[in-house]
């Protein structure tokens, strides 16, 4: 196993001792080892892949919950209350709070910790702030790996919190088993804009700040949309999405394979509705287990992980190749000067790779 890894990662000079020490520290419950492991994941430090890979055996016990919604919807406050409630019930919690980074300086101010004051001083709530460091699909991989580290550490519940804007964000929350989308009251227009992307990934809708004007209306609008729409398109099962699916709202016992996202009203600042929300999370977890949907999601996630890793590695190889032929700037100038075009360059650069792959007469075997 180790040799295989070394073969696939020629650039990694693996500091074996350090990685082993981190791994055993993390599994023994050392907070600092967990923190350092997540840093390694974020930095893609040498050896991090072996580290995460070796943790896989110890994962799979945590419930992973994604919380997303527009800025100011109350995500951090709600996550704080969720953590507090889980702690009261004797469960340990890991939180990954993701904030955007500046596309110009690469810097970031990660402020979600400020809202997470209820559990401060309690080391069994492990809060980690992460920023999007602007790599291709990198953040969702890093998030998924950080979740694995927390899972292996022994956290019962892991909450991923992120602003729901854009594909990257949707990829991130998809690393969760259950996704809660926060919709602030009175955001009639916002609901419209949400429709296209984020609404489709919701397993649970949360109308936070439910004491504000317009909360009832927002609930009503969501309800209408759920009934009219074809439900969460996350589980693609065209059989259930015909016009007939509207009728399932009439009789209480809908087909067990169909999950209708419930709408929970909360006032996160006062903790109102948090218990109900946790009950819905649990119901969704049961649903995932009972219908086999959970296994399906897990497999899909692993497939995506494999793809992402391959893409990253190939990307790296191609960057090296670019450097070898004189760097991207040179090529860009050639295009700007009208001497060639991007398609020709891409074709030429890829040709040896294609030739190489063509020469492999047997497909690689996986142990």
């Amino acid at each position, binding site marked *: 196993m180790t040799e295989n890894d070394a073969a696939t990662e020629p650039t990694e000079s693996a500091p074996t001792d350090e990685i082993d020490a981190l791994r055993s520290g993390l599994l023994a419950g050392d907070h*600092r080892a967990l*923190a350092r492991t997540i840093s390694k994941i974020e930095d893609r430090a040498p050896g991090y892949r072996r580290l995460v890979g070796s943790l896989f055996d110890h994962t799979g016990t945590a419930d992973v919950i994604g919380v997303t919604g527009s800025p100011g919807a109350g995500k951090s406050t709600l996550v704080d209350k969720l953590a507090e409630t889980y702690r009261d019930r004797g469960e340990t919690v890991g939180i990954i709070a993701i904030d955007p980074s*500046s596309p110009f*300086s*690469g810097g970031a*101010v990660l402020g979600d910790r400020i809202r997470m004051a209820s559990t401060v001083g309690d080391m069994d709530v492990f809060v980690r702030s992460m920023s999007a*460091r602007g790599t291709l699909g990198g953040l969702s991989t890093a998030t998924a790996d950080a979740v694995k580290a927390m899972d292996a550490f022994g956290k019962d519940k892991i909450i991923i919190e992120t602003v729901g804007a854009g594909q990257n964000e949707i990829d991130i929350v998809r690393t969760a088993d259950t996704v809660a989308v926060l919709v602030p009251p009175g955001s009639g227009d916002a609901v419209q804009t949400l429709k296209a992307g984020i609404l489709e990934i919701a397993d649970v809708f949360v109308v936070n700040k439910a004491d504000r004007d317009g909360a009832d209306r927002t609930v009503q609008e969501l309800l209408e949309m759920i009934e009219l729409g074809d439900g969460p398109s996350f589980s693609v099962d065209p059989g259930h999405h015909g016009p007939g699916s509207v009728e399932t709202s009439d009789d209480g016992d809908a087909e067990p394979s169909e999950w209708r996202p419930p709408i929970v009203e909360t006032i996160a600042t006062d903790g109102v509705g948090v218990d109900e929300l946790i009950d819905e999370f649990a119901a969704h977890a049961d649903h995932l287990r009972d219908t086999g949907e959970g296994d399906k999601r897990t497999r899909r996630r692993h497939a995506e992980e494999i793809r992402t890793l391959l893409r990253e590695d190939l990307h790296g190889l191609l960057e090296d190749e670019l450097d070898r032929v004189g760097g991207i700037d040179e090529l860009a100038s050639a295009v700007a000067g009208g001497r060639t075009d991007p398609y020709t360059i891409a074709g030429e650069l890829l040709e040896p790779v294609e030739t190489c792959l063509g020469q492999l007469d047997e497909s690689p075997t996986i142990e």
Partner: protein
Amino acid sequence: MSTESAGRSIRCLVAKVGLDGHDRGAHVIARAFRDAGFEVIYSGLHNAPEEIVQAAVQEDVDVLGISILSGAHNTLVPKIMAGLEEYGAADDTLVLVGGVIPDEDRSKLEDAGVSAIFGPGTSIEETVGFVRENAPER
């Protein structure tokens, strides 16, 4: 743009500790660090020393910047240092103090493990430069 490499980014915790509501300086520093390309975690106001320690350990920061203008530094800073020590984090965290620190207290804080003290009038460049040069290699 720093997008070409996934590489390391300097992580800083900017912390306000104790009963001190003056956070303009902390905000300015947080913003300056962000613009310098660091990842900044801001603690918010009125934290206990153990809360700062918890955040520093969990976030695995390279740099801990403590902003104090209340005069309670002789009590609060050693408590934070002791907490970091407890988690084995004191050695590879660069601890800075910003604010109003009388000259006679400086050596005491430095003995406790503070790497640098930035008083009123310190330029942003100086602080950022110090962090760049002294952020621990890990």
